[in-house]
């Protein structure tokens, strides 16, 4: 069970949260210009690293707000928590 520090509510158990997958996936600026391959890539392909991963979580059973987390996908250590819209912090 992860212990996740919601930026607004503080530390809560993973059960209160909803997972939203990779963070910082920008909607294509000009979707009509995308090839089928590029559109498929945008829809279906995400990073899947063995290591630090920037991902979105929603505090579904709390303040219901979305925010971003950098979590190590092997150790599950949470390396950073930051509001949506902010750039991904540099992880040493």
């Amino acid at each position, binding site marked *: 069970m992860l212990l996740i520090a919601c930026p607004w509510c503080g530390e809560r158990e993973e059960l209160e949260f909803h997972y939203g*997958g990779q963070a910082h996936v920008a909607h294509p600026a000009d979707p009509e210009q995308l090839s089928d391959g590029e559109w*498929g890539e945008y829809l279906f392909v995400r990073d*899947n690293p063995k290591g630090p991963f920037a991902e979105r979580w929603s505090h579904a059973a709390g303040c219901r707000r979305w925010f971003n987390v950098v979590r190590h996908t*092997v150790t599950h250590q949470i390396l950073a928590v930051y509001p949506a819209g902010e750039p991904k912090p540099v992880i040493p």
Partner: protein
Amino acid sequence: MSHRLPEHPDWLWRTPDPRRSYDVVVIGAGGHGLATAYYLARNHGITDVAVLERGWLAGGNMARNTTIIRSNYLCEESAALYEHALKLWEVLPEELDYDFLFSQRGVLNLAHTLQDVREGTRRVNANRLGGVDAEWLDPDQVRAFCPIVNTSPDVRYPVLGATLQPRAGIAKHDHVAWALARRADAYGVDLIQGCEVTGFLRDGDRVVGVRTNRGPIAAGKVALAAAGHSSVLAGLAGLRLPVQSHPLQALVSELLEPVHPTVVMSNHVHVYVSQAHKGELVMGAGVDAYNGYGQRGSFHMIEHQMSAALELFPIFARAHVLRTWGGIVDVTPDASPIIGPTPVENLYLNCGWGTGGFKATPSSGWVYAHTIATGEPHPLAAPFALERFTTGALIDEHGAAAVAH
């Protein structure tokens, strides 16, 4: 089929050092990699094959699954692939001359809501149209087939019926791997453990071999069969896959007298339970929501599946958990595998089986071997090509496959 465990012979395969070059290098000596090597030799006469394994043979997801075999999938592409597997399971013990305790005790998929009933009856009809055995049972028939299921109407999610696939069942996963390994080895395939692939040898756009911790190995063709680590491996070749890796947990109880005559799955309360030949209750549920490679999962998933199991089987209330474990499964956006060539010449892909790879083992090897040997997708594998994420011709088995992903 005997209910005694077979004796484990001392040596089932050689442990050769890797040669400098092979016609085909398969990466991953799990069930799918071993089945691929076996069928490359048996069906295509290709025996200049190495299967490279980072750890030990069948020590990844093959050692961590819940051993359930069934083919009652909704989409006809999936049903065809898994039914091909089931037909192979029915002949393999004799063909491999190894009793891996394949037991066709049937699988019940319980329905707890009106939507479950509709989904189940639809799937029964779809299965029958596709040549897959399937029946619909009412609650009394469920009780008759599996007396220990709680069919009382006075529970939170009463059993409203179930689908039954009588030919489904379980097999002893380790013995399956050893049986395939022994036969592949007898054909001359080199099974090389402790050999980690660290990169690919390229000649322009073509893959011509692999780098390993035991030196470079040239290969005419390279075939990935690495389950939960496929995207990490493909990344070494510059490929990004539509795959996310998630922890999937299972657990077993202490040994009990034979009490559970079939496999019971419940998508709605979400647990699946069977009883192994030795007597353990084997249970599983869904994947953890988040990506992970840690080969362990969350405690609350165990709690969830055990509370579901207890509601369905009050008789298990005093059973003790003996062991829990986690494997890493690669899940695709449409909950269906990816099998076929890649944009990199001579590099082949078999991944994305999600939570359901074990039951497909022989079929996966069969169609993958065909695809590698001929360079053309096997007809059963063609719908599962990587291109579907560009064309949009998805095989959407989320929920439809009688299990949540």
